[in-house]
């Protein structure tokens, strides 16, 4: 007998939205809601197993095929890349990548190389590469907004939801980089070896978005 289909969820908001979606499809997610400290949780009536992981790890587990499917933000996919099928735009977890600077700063003026602070160096690099702009990219782990305020960077590339944090720190979005939302990803072999089960589930999901 095959093991249940394993779906890795990004802990936090995407996890809650996905569990809501699964419940809408009629799955009993009690175990997931009352998870305690457990990380692998059964969904009894669906031959489904939920795995809770950090966003980057969702991609890693799906790439290796130890999880068949995953729910992860487009932000993580853009930064990490990897080999998997990106089948469905789930529509929730909507926000965007944007380039922001100190209010009133003329980012594109002058010929000096601009410094960009970001948690997403690959996203930032490819954005400026497409413009043919050579930039210096500095990876920041915490609040990226600090970097321009401390004058370490000319601008930041970061996730923007409402823009409140930017506003409160005297920053503003000067350009959108890419829209973001939650995606359903599937391991390349799982989709083929368990096509019927996975396609069935995806069809149900698409009908309930």
């Amino acid at each position, binding site marked *: 007998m095959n093991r249940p289909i394993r779906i890795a969820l990004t802990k936090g908001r995407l996890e809650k939205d996905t569990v809501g979606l699964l419940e809408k499809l009629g799955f009993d997610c009690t175990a997931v809601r009352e998870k305690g400290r457990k990380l692998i949780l059964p969904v009894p009536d669906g031959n489904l197993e939920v795995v809770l992981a950090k966003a980057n790890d969702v991609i890693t587990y799906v*790439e*290796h*095929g130890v999880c068949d499917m995953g729910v992860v933000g487009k932000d993580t996919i853009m930064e990490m890349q990897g080999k998997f099928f990106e*089948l*469905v735009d789930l529509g929730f977890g909507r926000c965007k990548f944007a380039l922001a600077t100190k209010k009133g700063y003329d980012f594109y003026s002058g010929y000096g190389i601009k410094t960009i602070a970001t948690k997403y160096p690959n996203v930032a690099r490819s954005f400026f590469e497409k413009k043919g702009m050579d930039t210096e990219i500095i990876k920041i782990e915490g609040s990226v907004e600090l970097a321009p305020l401390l004058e370490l960077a000319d601008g930041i590339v970061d996730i923007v939801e409402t823009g409140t944090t930017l506003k409160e720190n005297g920053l503003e979005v000067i350009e959108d980089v890419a829209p973001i939302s939650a995606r359903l990803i*599937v391991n*390349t*072999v799982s989709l*083929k070896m368990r096509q019927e089960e996975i396609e069935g589930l995806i069809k149900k999901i698409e009908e309930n978005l």
Partner: protein
Amino acid sequence: MRNYDLITPEGTKDLLFGECIVRRDIERTLMELFKSRGYSEVITPGLEFYDVFNLNSRYFHQENLYKLTDSKGRLLVMRPDSTMPIARVVATRLRDAILPLKLCYAQTVYRTEPALKGRSDEIVQTGIELIGSQMKIADLEVISTAADSLTATGMEFSIELGHIGIFKELVSRLDATPSEKEQIRKLIENKNYPALNDVLDTFGESHVTTALKKLPSLFGGAEVFDKAEELMPDENIKLLLDELRDIYADASGLCGDAGSITVDLGLVNKTDYYTGLIIKGYLSGHGEEVVSGGRYDKLISEFGYDIPAVGFAVNVNAICKAVEKGGILPAMPSPDVIVYAEEGYEADAIRAAKELREQGFVVENALFDDIDSVRDYAKEKKIAKVIVIDGDSKEAEI
């Protein structure tokens, strides 16, 4: 400065005992299978000139190659693939050989993989190349050999077929720049339906865009061909589809009980030099493909010899991993006998051990001072018999 003298480089590892047995068994089984079909082995150098892999079509990205220079400063790479070196050999030393050529190989390829991803930079591949035939039976022979290779693993498997020509023809009918075409290819490869639809919508609605939108969803069994048929915009593409349908129908009966055969029209990998049929193989429960191949009718002509070919490679590491996951590693084999020499009888003991080996036993010479240590060692290593050579017994019997 830090010394790295106790570890192996990222993406490499030592194999010990049982791991070696598994790996050599698989290699041997597959090579015997290939040879029983009339394939002859070739071994190409581990080092090649970079130029071999830097043809016009640039199948390999330079960032994925291990590079070094020779004594004249010329750029070399550690072989990242066996098919291209074999194409080089065919176009040079085997140019006058009678066709078809049937070649097989078992050798390591090197590619840099992203760090800390649990991937191997050093992969053993065994495979075949069938050169000089464009006949359907050549394709079928290669597919059935791939299926037999996976049958030999004893695991449930699936062979998947595709046809890169269908995508190439479709996209060539689109008024798109090369970089737009590449973007479309990538979205089809990743089955990224939402983004693919967005991009294709910018080209307006036509038979071609509708077909391209559907391409990644056209995978599964025989029903795929019926769905695809009505989508194909013209007779030329329908012809390619019929070619694949024909092969699929015949190949379905060649997979044995443990395997199934499926089709995916969305197989459009970039690094491929394939021109027509594409072959992939999967093992149940293993997250990555274990067989990869197809028809490459234009590759050898890039080396100056215009001749069609088809082949595949098996990722032996992946099969080892699947085998080891499924069960325990074979135990380290124990010798049958250990021969202990009393002081002064060392030469006699070595002679005695040799005689026993000639009778077919696996025999070790004991390298200890006293018989008790030999007994302890034999017990630990599960050696059934200890023979003592002293003045009385210069010849051993079992």
